[in-house]
């Protein structure tokens, strides 16, 4: 049973976060876009088959007549039936209005209901199986659309949820790591092995980020000095998108959970980090379903969020986009503007959404989808791969991630519908489509050293080299930049072959936030500098390296920079011992 949630001043109004629903049926919790739309939401990701109802019970203080609103969105507004439609039932009776039809996140009116008892059952019934979404439900007596909420949703939410400023619960650790991808997991393991008490905060139910069974990208790169650690969490070289990812998932989760001094906070998402005098005091996180909050305190923090959120909140310097080739001297005539532009821009590498099909023994229906046609056009496909990738210069990989994900869903459903028209594909069925955006590039936090293409070209041998890699630099561009006949959701890779290259420790801690490490794609590098080390064994190496640096920090009660200035040899010796 959920707690009663009361709007201040309007005692009888009731606000329910959809992700709080006790029984979510077939709806999934989507916390990817919290920073943009204010909260996780639930989504009917049924790949065309309506999912099971989500249900919950709520206690009202007052019986009587209520108007019911749902905060939802028609995710493909246009001249067609909205793809993600659903209805609300109250105590088993459906309200008349079909929801999910208004463009943009907004309150849609569901209907009127007369409550005869204080306990109310609310049910969300998906009608289409195509990603209908519901953020919250609101009951009021005045039939006034809670429009004022839209102006400043975050603060409005705090009021209606009667949320205190700071989380009531607080936990203390030696090291707080936010982000449970390969980098975060490796950092947790390497620090925990040396005795640190570690918190690992991750916003999904499973570990691994892009390598998880929820995204399904295989790990690439070499193990460097951390083979033992990385072999606990890596993947086999299954085809991207393969359901084989589940075997590595089980192993990875089991291995990380086996450490008694790693407190794992799965389904917790960081939402704030506050620095005083350039030193982070705490990270606040919220449970993605229950909304419970915890304040995490530690002398040092690791930003392994991929998007650099901890650094961003704390005021760390960061970069985004493609630098001019003049900034760091990264031009490569062979590929010119595709590689590194004359003038800086925001055309970063895109995000992928992977998918897979299944061949059954009988014909499977998959009808044409007018709302997907605009994107897929005539492209036909029965599965995805790494090159199903989307970036466009009006879209930011963080702020517009929901639109990017939705564009990819249209590409997938539309291309599959096209392929299904062929006789040879009649028995194919969509087996799995991810709803998580697999990002390649977003914010890059700035460290004492900015890693660039020249460090690959020159194979710079840093005295503080802690990560090594031989995989080629691999930078992507959208195919439609060169060929207008190509769909806008496919990419091409440019490769620069290289000998072994090294990444210095100085690019793994923040320049201006003195107790912040970073590992993963948000480490300190240029756009092209990211091209090589962005693969997951390399980012895993970064994680393992910062975990060990945190051990030295703890030993001498120092900040990350002082490991480089005063204890470098001891740190490098500790890394050597890991093999």
């Amino acid at each position: 049973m959920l707690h009663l949630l009361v709007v201040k001043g309007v005692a009888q109004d009731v606000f329910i976060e959809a992700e709080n629903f006790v029984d979510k049926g077939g709806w999934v919790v989507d916390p990817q876009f919290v920073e943009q739309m204010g909260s996780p939401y639930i989504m009917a990701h049924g790949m065309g088959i309506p999912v099971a109802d989500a249900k919950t019970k709520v206690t009202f203080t007052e019986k009587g007549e209520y108007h019911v609103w749902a905060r939802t969105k028609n995710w493909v507004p246009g001249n067609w039936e909205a793809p993600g439609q659903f209805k609300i039932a109250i105590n088993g009776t459906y309200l008349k209005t079909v929801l999910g039809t208004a463009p943009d996140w907004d309150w849609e009116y569901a209907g009127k209901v007369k409550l005869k008892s204080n306990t109310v059952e609310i049910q969300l019934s998906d009608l289409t199986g195509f990603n209908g979404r519901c953020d919250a439900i609101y009951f009021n007596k005045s039939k006034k659309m809670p429009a004022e909420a839209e102006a400043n949703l975050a603060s409005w939410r705090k009021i209606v949820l009667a949320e205190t400023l700071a989380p009531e619960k607080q936990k203390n650790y030696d090291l707080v790591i936010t982000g449970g991808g390969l980098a975060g997991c490796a950092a947790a393991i390497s620090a925990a092995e040396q005795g640190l008490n570690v918190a690992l905060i991750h916003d999904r139910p499973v570990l691994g980020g892009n390598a998880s069974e929820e995204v399904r990208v295989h790990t690439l790169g070499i193990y460097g000095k951390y083979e033992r650690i990385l072999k606990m969490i890596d993947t086999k070289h299954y085809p991207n998108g393969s359901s084989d990812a589940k075997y590595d998932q089980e192993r990875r989760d089991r291995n990380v959970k086996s450490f008694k001094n790693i407190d794992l906070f799965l389904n917790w998402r960081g939402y704030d980090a506050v620095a005083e005098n350039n030193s982070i005091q705490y990270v606040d996180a919220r449970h993605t379903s229950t909304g419970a909050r915890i304040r995490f305190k530690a002398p040092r923090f690791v930003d392994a969020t991929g998007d650099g959120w901890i650094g961003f909140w704390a005021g760390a310097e960061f970069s985004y986009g493609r630098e001019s080739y003049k900034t760091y001297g990264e031009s490569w005539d062979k590929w010119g503007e595709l590689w590194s532009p004359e003038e800086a821009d925001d055309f970063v590498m895109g995000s992928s959404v992977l998918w897979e099909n299944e061949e059954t023994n009988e014909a499977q229906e998959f009808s044409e989808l007018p709302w997907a046609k605009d994107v897929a056009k005539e492209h036909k496909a029965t599965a995805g791969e790494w090159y199903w990738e989307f970036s466009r210069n009006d879209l930011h990989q963080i702020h517009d991630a929901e639109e990017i994900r939705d564009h990819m869903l249209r590409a997938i459903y539309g291309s599959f519908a096209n392929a299904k028209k062929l006789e040879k594909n009649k028995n194919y069925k969509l087996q799995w489509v991810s709803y998580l955006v697999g990002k390649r590039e977003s914010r890059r936090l700035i460290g004492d050293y900015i890693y660039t293409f020249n460090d690959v070209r020159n194979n710079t041998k840093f005295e503080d080299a802690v990560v090594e890699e031989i995989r080629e630099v691999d930078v992507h561009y959208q195919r439609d930049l060169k060929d207008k006949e190509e769909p806008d959701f496919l990419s091409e890779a440019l490769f620069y072959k290289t000998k072994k290259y090294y990444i210095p420790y100085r690019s793994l801690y923040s320049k201006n936030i003195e107790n912040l490490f970073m590992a993963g794609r948000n480490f300190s590098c240029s756009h092209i500098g990211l091209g090589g080390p962005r693969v997951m064994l390399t980012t895993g190496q970064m994680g393992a390296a910062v975990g060990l640096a945190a051990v030295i920090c703890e030993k001498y009660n120092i900040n990350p920079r002082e490991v480089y200035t005063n204890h470098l040899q001891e740190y490098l010796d500790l890394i050597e011992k890991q093999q």
Partner: protein
Amino acid sequence: MLIAILFAITGYKNQKRPEYKPLFFSMANEWQEIAQDKVIFEYTIKSSDSAYADPNIHNVRLLSNNKGQPRLFFSEIETTVCADGECKLANINVYWNLLGNYVGYGIFPKLPLTKYDHVSFEKEDYAKLHQLFLDDNSILKRRKISDLVDTVSISSSNTSLIHVDAISGATRTEIKESVVKGGLYSCYTLWHIVHGEAKDKMKEHVQSMHSDSLTAYFLYAPYEDYQKYGLKQLPKKDFKHHTAQIVNIFKTNDALTRGYILKKIPDADLSIEKIATQLYNTFPGVDSNARTLLLKKLENANSIAVEIVSQYLDYLTKNQLILYLTYLKENPGKHTKKVKRNLIRTSKNKRYAYSHLVKEYLKNRK
């Protein structure tokens, strides 16, 4: 070797033999205009077999027309193609354009290319080879020959039920599609010569010949890569002397080039009504990325641009529309009657997904 000798003589004065004629040529008729021929540099091709251990030295020649204007690079290539220890010779004549990009090839009729089993190439095999050479980012580039013939293993659980487009990198299927059947070794060897070290030297050479007239030749040529190079060589200050052609390139070249033009074109040029009109009138026909850049340039462009874009609001993505409306909000002086008329029309367009945002904007203005 008779042909080689003839070619080596500077200016072969219409002594064209049928052998010079390329089998495939992706430019217009430049090869027919050639009147001068000069050896520019040498490059070496290493044999893939120890029996031919000596590196094979080849010439690259710059071919020019009767006015001495450079037009093509050319090389007669003879190389060994080896498979399973068995080697044979392959002879082709390759043409590159002035940027070192492959444009065509010919063969000696008496020396046809052969496949693995010594069977001569068929007509369609030659055509496929030309297509393969044209792909400068071919899958062959990143693979060793040994990788191309090995079976790619896919884990057993995937073999029956799951079908993917490809595993990461490449599959044999992808390779098969791009090479001549039974001619993998020939294709692989020749592709790497055509796209080998000689290419970079040609580019260096053309850079050393830099002149305004050559830049103009590139800029006005009907080839996308030439236009790009011309734009790159053209100083910003000279853009205004070539606006008609630059707008033409903007309309017809690829999205990447459009972006390049919009980044490079000086604000002073954009503030001229005629140039802004020409450029912004392309709005409905260009790609979405170019539209974003055109919108971002509104603040520097002549006022006419704001009106032109207002005719095409229903082409805008959500973020583009927000960009436009934000611009109008910050520049109320640009909110002309024409702009307002178009805003009202767009707000009523039921087929446009974001008409509600325009409606909201108009409501807030009242």
